[in-house]
């Protein structure tokens, strides 16, 4: 049996990689991929912790719901990025800056 710390270490790494992809923004699609990685890190955590919750399976259920919600959010996000691309002909967030103080 793999100890739980291994899972936590992997998920923390995935979370940090996702966060790096979000922060070093060059491409809106890559930001969405980064967000997806962060969510998957959380899901991995939930399933790993869920092993110790044999009574209610809260972690497993939460993981399922999180997967569905992440898919919905990404679908909306992709369509909005597509719409922005039609207007700007770019999806680099650094170049889409009409709204600012």
């Amino acid at each position, binding site marked *: 049996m793999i100890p739980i710390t291994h899972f936590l270490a992997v998920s923390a790494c995935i979370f940090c990689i996702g966060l790096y992809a979000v922060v070093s923004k060059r491409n809106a699609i890559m930001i*969405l991929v980064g967000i997806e990685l*962060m969510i998957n890190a959380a899901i991995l955590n939930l399933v790993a912790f869920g092993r110790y919750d044999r009574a209610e399976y809260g972690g497993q259920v939460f993981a399922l719901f*999180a997967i569905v919600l992440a898919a919905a959010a990404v679908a909306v996000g992709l369509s909005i990025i597509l719409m922005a691309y039609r207007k700007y002909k770019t999806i680099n967030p650094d170049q889409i800056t009409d709204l600012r103080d």
Partner: protein
Amino acid sequence: MYEFAPQITPIIDHIIDSVRSFRPELAISIAFIGTIFCSLFIDKYWKQSSFSSFLIGIVAAGYLTYTQNVENLPVFFDMLRVDSFSQYARIIILFGVAIIGLYIQQYGSYQLPKKRLGDIYAILLATTLGLHLLTLTTHWIMAFIAVEMVSIGSYVLVAYFAQNKKESEAAMKYVLFGSTCAAFMLYGLSLLYGFTGSLDFTSIAQMKGMIAAPTILSTLALLFVFVGIGFKLGFVPFHVWTPDVYEGAPTPITAFLATVPKVGAIVLFSRLILAWTASPFYFGEVTLHFLCFVAIVTMLIGNLVALRQQNIKRLMAYSSVGHTGFLLLAVLSYVHHEPEVLFFYLSTYILMNLAVFGFIMILEKQTGSANLPDYSGQGKRFPILFTALTFAGISLVGLPPTSGFVAKLLVFTSIFDLYQTVDQSLYLYLLIVGVLTSVISLFYYLKIPMYGFLRQTTPSKPADGVATNSHIVYGFALFFTLLLLLFGLFPDLLLDFFRQP
């Protein structure tokens, strides 16, 4: 599998019993399906059918919520908490959503007469369902689903009308920022679940787990969770999306973003703060200090940055950030058992914002701009509108005789009482910053009548020849202003409603 067999009857009985407490939300769900059906099949023959279906659903949900039996029964295995606290919040939410639906209908009829609006009502209803769940739950799974329902619905609402560059940019920034915050929240929740093994934040298991967990990690998890709630509430430092999205979104959608999601989020936040500060352990302290610190910074930044805004929607965005700070103060007074203060502030806040955004819709339509310098001298053209807008502004500042004054007075009194009983200097700082920022806010809210009445008329372009009228929006906005004055003079009318058990 077989171990469930003897229990299956009580489980089914419980679920069937729970459905009875879930009727307002069922009404919204049915209206959601009905609105989609109308927009697909009946809108061809009768253009307003989807709007009517939306309105019927909201009114039915409002009636069912009002007559609901609130006995704090366990609903759906304690996933939902049906109490009077959530009942008042849901009535406020339904009121706000109904008015915003009306604004959207009017906006669509004069701005985009060709565009099909049926779907937007369906999305609005789905978002309302999410808001209802947000006010009802103390369970993290439910809370996360509700937050995401509201978020995804709001992304679509912002993007739905997008016709020019600004609108699509606002939608894109909103969706990227919002999804990142949701991911942070989910990671924080997974850590909380790992420390405690429980997903109900009022449960004893969660308290015990938090006490046993290492301090640094549990503080980190708490902060991650607050990222998600902070995004929905828009407090500093998660407010950076507000000015851009509020400016870029169509005005009725801005009115939506500024009002109802905050009610849902603040109710969830209040429950959380109430559950966690009740325990005398360190994470109660952490939450309380976090709340006070964030409230101070939010009031300061929101009101100071608003001073140099020239776009009225951006100005309202920073004003709503500032008001979030005051709402956090009202949460503190809720924690000390004065929920009517919180509800009075919330309902006043919603009335003020609905009135102001109604006026902004009309001004935008008449002058074709949301920049304050373009309103120079328009006070002579629309004297009643600018007078009413000035009253709404006075209410936002918190001056008598408006209900904004009463709301702020109640909050400050309750914080002062708190300071005298607990004698922590933290509360005194909160009070000082609150009063100081109220004074600062006077300068920027009064910029609107200053431009309207005192500046000379610029040779403005004439009103574009849109023939349809917007009397309904105008009438409602004026009515809300009158209500603000009424509740300012007779606050007991509203307070008694929230006081009845």
